[in-house]
């Protein structure tokens, strides 16, 4: 049983949202499949030094690697860990290979396995079945992957347990102050994770009047009744992106390979761009308006639909 969250105005700063809702030892899920990854939230968690975290997501990318480098993660739950199209996550590598000091705990699935965990969590079921993992070592390396016999056909299916993160951080293009959140472009597992999580922070590029949401209700991915806090954070995803707002900073992802390979340059980066700024606004000033102008999306509007009856 869950209590719907009906507060009329949930708008807080990123600092407040993280302080109130992300606690040491939590299982956190900063969602985003390439698109809408909230770097602003990750950086605020690092600034507040909230540690002992279990960091969960299909694709832990740069921001999760930064949490690892900052020493805040004790366990990683994932299905693909890398810098897409570029290379490795170096903090993770340093903490996961032979003879690594202070090895990270890891719990590993495939994408389909992780997605299925969010489906079970969102649907209020204890597990989810899928036809997968046979003929591989994945299930045998993860005792949480089990199997079930279908009561109709007698066939065997793999099962994965429901996921219930303590807190999900969902970045969206627009939301109202109650947290009714609309997304377009890639949707990842945003909806499923919001329904699975105990607490939900919605971070929006734009805060709009509830009437704007009501005029296009099909686009609402996360309903406000799930949401604990709403943060207005324009450009909160850079170097990730927000469709219709700004492009992915591919050059940064490519440069990151060199920054992160050496612990010294990695530490310098965190000192300058995370600890060296007090919030996202200062980060954006440091990144520079030239870059932001270059990344700003060119308009590409759709025709819209008619909800009349």
């Amino acid at each position, binding site marked *: 049983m869950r209590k719907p969250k009906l507060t009329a105005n949930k708008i807080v700063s990123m600092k407040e949202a993280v302080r109130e809702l992300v606690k040491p030892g939590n299982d956190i899920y900063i969602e985003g*499949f*390439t*698109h809408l990854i909230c770097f602003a939230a990750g950086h605020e968690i690092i600034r507040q030094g909230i540690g002992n975290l279990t960091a969960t997501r*299909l*694709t832990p990318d740069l921001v999760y690697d930064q949490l690892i480098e900052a020493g805040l993660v004790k366990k990683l739950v*994932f*299905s*693909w*860990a*890398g810098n*897409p*199209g*570029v290379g*490795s996550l170096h903090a*993770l*590598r340093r903490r*996961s*290979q*032979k*003879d690594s000091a202070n090895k990270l705990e890891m719990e*590993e*699935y*495939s*994408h*389909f396995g992780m*997605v*299925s965990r*969010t*489906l079970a969590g969102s649907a209020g079921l204890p597990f989810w079945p*899928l*036809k*997968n*993992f*046979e*003929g*591989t*070592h*994945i299930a*045998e*390396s993860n005792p949480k992957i089990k199997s079930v016999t279908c009561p109709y056909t007698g*066939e065997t299916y793999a099962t994965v347990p429901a996921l219930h993160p303590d807190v999900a951080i969902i970045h969206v293009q627009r939301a109202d102050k109650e947290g009714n959140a609309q997304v*377009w*472009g*890639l*949707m*990842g*597992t*945003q*909806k*499923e994770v919001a329904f699975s999580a105990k607490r939900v922070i919605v971070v929006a590029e734009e805060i709009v009047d509830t009437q704007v949401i009501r005029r296009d209700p099909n686009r609402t991915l996360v309903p406000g009744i799930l949401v604990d806090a709403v943060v207005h954070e324009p450009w909160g995803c850079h170097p990730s*992106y927000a*469709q219709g707002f700004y*492009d*992915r900073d*591919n050059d940064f*992802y*490519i440069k990151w390979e060199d920054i992160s390979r050496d612990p010294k340059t990695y530490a310098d980066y965190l000192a300058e761009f995370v600890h060296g700024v007090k919030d996202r606004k200062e980060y954006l000033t440091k990144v520079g308006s030239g870059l932001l102008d270059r990344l700003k*999306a060119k308009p*590409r509007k759709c025709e819209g639909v008619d909800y009349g009856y």
Partner: protein
Amino acid sequence: MVTKTTPGGITASERMAVRASQELQNQEVVFVGIGLPNLACNLARATHAPQLFMIYESGTIGTIPARLPVSIGDPTLVTDSLAIVSQSDIFQCYLQGGLIEVGFLGGAQVDRYGNINTTVIGDYQNPKIRLPGSGGACEIATHSQRVLIMMRMSPKSFVAKCDFITSPGSKMDSSKPSRDLGKTRQDLKLPGGGPTKAITDLGVLEMLDGEFTLTEIYPGVTVEQVKQNCGWDLKIAPALKTIEEPDPKTLELLRNKIDPDRLYL
């Protein structure tokens, strides 16, 4: 990425992209991967398969990328697609639902049965090298009607036994104990057809009777060279075909239109 160039000035990546594109039929539904598979698919669409139906793992359906995507979730994949769906739809409805005709895979290690390792080199608990993991690879290998593997050959990558099997091939084989050891796809009732070909920088390996056999070779490459770059005693087809070098028009397309910054070529 190491760029090997042939005497004719054509790179190994160009050969692989062109040869892989020829495997794709018009109107086929393909699950596109980033890198060389993306080049192969977009080249096929620009040449002999204009209605190739491209699906990307990030959830884009009927995609026509306007620029080269660096990531599987690049915004260019969204713009002008026929549909954008959630991750649960892409894996449950499209892949497990049986809609994907061709999947692409690559990895750090592959064996004679087309089993692929993208997880670890060495022991799982204490690996020499930690690789990214499965991502969608395991389910692509399980459910696609056929799988094309694109990998460069070397004794380190074409191995007798994979250190870890991430994605299933035609038969489970590994030095690591497993409950599925020795079982075939049929034994395990895997829905997809599994790997049918490996497109490499030296030639093409075809899955014949459940084992990779060298069936095609590039001009200037010897059988001995291929064998030296393979970690098992590779079967050679009696009638070995020589692959035609890509024609100038196709190369021009690939170099100037599809990957103008030479990110993957």
